């Protein structure tokens, strides 16, 4: 496992280097003119500005400067003057929060529906489920987001529902008012993510411990409830509970949109993979042993289908991330990576574009590594051969 991890990490680093190099030259060569061309300046003023920004030097030299500072996590300054790393960190808070929340909802949802659809002989269930999943999978993200937003707005009263830009530190829903100079929304979001991830980890450990000590399986529903409840309690205890709930509510458009966008594919892959296992010998054996149909489905077929689902996710990650970036640009809720990248493209702010895209790349790579480790843990063949499962 260690050597597998090492190989994957090394491979990831190489990929990242190629990616960033390609990105740097792509952005710098393709974006027409430069930052200074959007101001009305005399030739001398322009030259002076170009010199102060360092964009008068040859591209190779700029690349070298950028890479050597990026190696120590310094992404330089945007042409607007603010440090790129800080802006990306703040924008990333929304993106990570929404992505984690949506995945936690959409993965079990798609998996559960796919399981039901694969094992259901009735056309009235299978056909519509599949058709809707296909439509959602191919739907246009902004429209989905728009419809979800309409739904949420209609569902919740305007007093309850506020977007992050409408959040007023003095009138935050629950808990005592929290002065804004102590914690900005991105800071709160990061803490929320950290707390929730910690709670998830604890829940998984508890599940494992119960299984090891008492030899009993905890129903997944109980674990999910534990995670949600634990997160809420964690947010409450951390001292910014009111804000946390309000922010989570404001993000519900994005979370809902991303869930709708991503559950379909998980459903379709689970369904296909489980139908593949139906006539497998181990299913026949399980039935011959007299296992109830439910156990055959959940413990034998669905588990075997988990592998293709995870390896499909590895390939689909960029698609989901792009969908999220689009959604989030549409609504500007909490201004995450989407708004940042589009704003940077509009302003021709090359350091910001390269920095933001590089961080998205690192995030994708990191998630891919997590998925690959999960696949390797599930399937020993991957660890031995060290190759991707198709």
């Amino acid at each position, binding site marked *: 496992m260690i050597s597998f991890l090492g190989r994957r990490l090394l*491979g990831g680093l*190489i*990929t*990242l280097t*190629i*990616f960033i190099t*390609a*990105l740097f030259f*792509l*952005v710098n*060569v*393709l*974006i*027409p003119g430069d930052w200074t061309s959007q101001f009305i300046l005399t030739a001398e003023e322009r030259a002076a500005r170009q010199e102060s920004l360092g964009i008068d030097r040859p591209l190779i030299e700029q690349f070298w400067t950028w890479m050597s500072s990026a190696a120590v996590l310094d992404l330089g300054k945007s042409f607007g003057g603010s440090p790129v790393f800080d802006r990306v960190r703040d924008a990333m808070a929304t993106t990570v929060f929404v992505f984690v929340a949506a995945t936690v909802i959409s993965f079990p949802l798609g998996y559960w529906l796919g399981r039901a659809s694969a094992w259901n*002989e009735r056309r009235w269930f299978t*056909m519509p489920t*599949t*058709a809707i999943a*296909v*439509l959602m*999978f*191919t*739907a*246009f*993200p*902004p*429209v989905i987001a*728009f419809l979800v937003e309409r739904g949420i707005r209609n569902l919740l009263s305007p007093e309850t529902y506020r977007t992050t830009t409408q959040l007023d530190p003095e009138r935050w829903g629950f808990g005592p008012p929290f002065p804004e100079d102590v914690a900005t929304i991105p800071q709160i979001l990061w803490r929320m993510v950290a707390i929730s991830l910690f709670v998830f980890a604890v829940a998984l450990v508890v599940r494992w411990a119960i299984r090891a000590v008492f030899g009993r399986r905890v129903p997944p529903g109980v674990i999910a409830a534990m995670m949600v409840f634990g997160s809420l309690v964690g947010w409450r205890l951390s001292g910014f509970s009111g804000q946390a709930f309000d922010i989570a509510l404001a993000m519900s458009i994005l979370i809902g949109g991303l869930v709708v966008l991503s559950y379909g594919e998980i459903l379709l892959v689970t369904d*296909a993979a489980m*139908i*593949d296992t*139906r*006539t497998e010998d181990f299913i026949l054996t399980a*039935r011959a042993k007299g296992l109830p*149909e439910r156990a055959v489905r959940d413990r034998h077929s669905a588990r075997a289908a988990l592998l293709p689902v995870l390896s499909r996710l590895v*390939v689909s990650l*960029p*698609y989901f*991330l*792009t969908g999220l*970036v*689009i959604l989030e640009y549409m609504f500007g809720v909490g201004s995450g990576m989407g708004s940042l*990248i*589009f704003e940077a*493209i509009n302003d021709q702010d090359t350091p910001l*574009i390269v920095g933001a*895209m590089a961080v*998205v*790349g690192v995030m*994708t*790579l990191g998630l891919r590594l997590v998925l690959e480790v999960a696949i390797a843990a599930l399937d020993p063949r991957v660890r031995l051969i060290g*190759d*991707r*499962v*198709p």
Partner: protein
Amino acid sequence: MIARSARSQMRRRQWASDAATFMSNRLAVIGLIVVVLFAGSLVVRQALWATVWEGQARIYDPATGYDAPILSLVVVEEVTDPDTEILRGHARLDGFLDAEVGDVFEKPIQPAPPSSKHWFGTDPFGRDVFSMVLAGATPAFVVGITAAVTTAVLGSLIAAVSAVFRGWVDAVLSKLSDTALLLPAPLAMIIVGAGAFGGDITPFWFGFLYGVIAGLGTAAIVLRSHALSIMGRPFIDAARVAGASRTRLAFRHLLPHLLPLAGVSMFTAVVGAVVAHGFAAWLSFADDLVNWGAMMFMGLTPIARFSGGDIAWNVLLAGALAISLFSASFYLVSLGVRDIALPHSQSRALRRHRHHGLDLRARS
């Protein structure tokens, strides 16, 4: 001569069996029907222009047409019936600057609801939405087909070369694929579109660039693992023993076996490319004047909200449904092609349906 006819007969039988496989997937058949309908809309459009819409470009042109039904409203101090009366202040805001009480204000309805003259209504600029939907099919097909062909060609070439040559060639190509997978295609398009094309990227180049990214990334990865499994089969060893060079091995023996799966990648590439193009068009990074992405934007913009009070639902839904149905139908077709490409899973799915009764008995 005999050998040739035997071979052609075999090929025909293969075609027939593939077609039967495809037809046995009901969703794929539905998808194919919708694709054909969309292709038919290209003809319908020409036909409409030749007959019903002939000489009426001022009304029905998808980019510059204008038509608005007129609603006559009486200007009043206090509105009791909003269908026939309008507040003086509102009439002035709407452009009837010297409106006085008692005047008749002839208000053009933009966007107009569906009528027999405009099947899908008109957009906030008074253009015929049905005509726009038909016109939007052309760029969608150009983007889709270009992306599909580029993806399939690039993906299967890379996969074949990787699987046959292995070693450092494979290592370099795999790393390239991983890199392409990191690049979110729509964003890359927008950077390229904003840069190299000065903000306007033509459908052809959009499809081609999307195809390069998808072909290098997803398609190459899926096809490569399939190619590796084919390389382990006996007929490859036989070809090797018979003295086939590696190039011949890749092109003559391996590639034909990759084609069905490349077909799957082709159809899924259409889905991604059309949605990405819709997004670029939504952000006005597209060269063509009328397309579905721009229609959705039109449906949601403040212009629509200003003139209609709310969203122009007919424009939004027409664009969104067109783009969703278009890409969904290609996705469904890809399911059918997948049944042909991977007979393993297909035979199981078939057996599942055919032995339905037996299965239930076994269960009870």
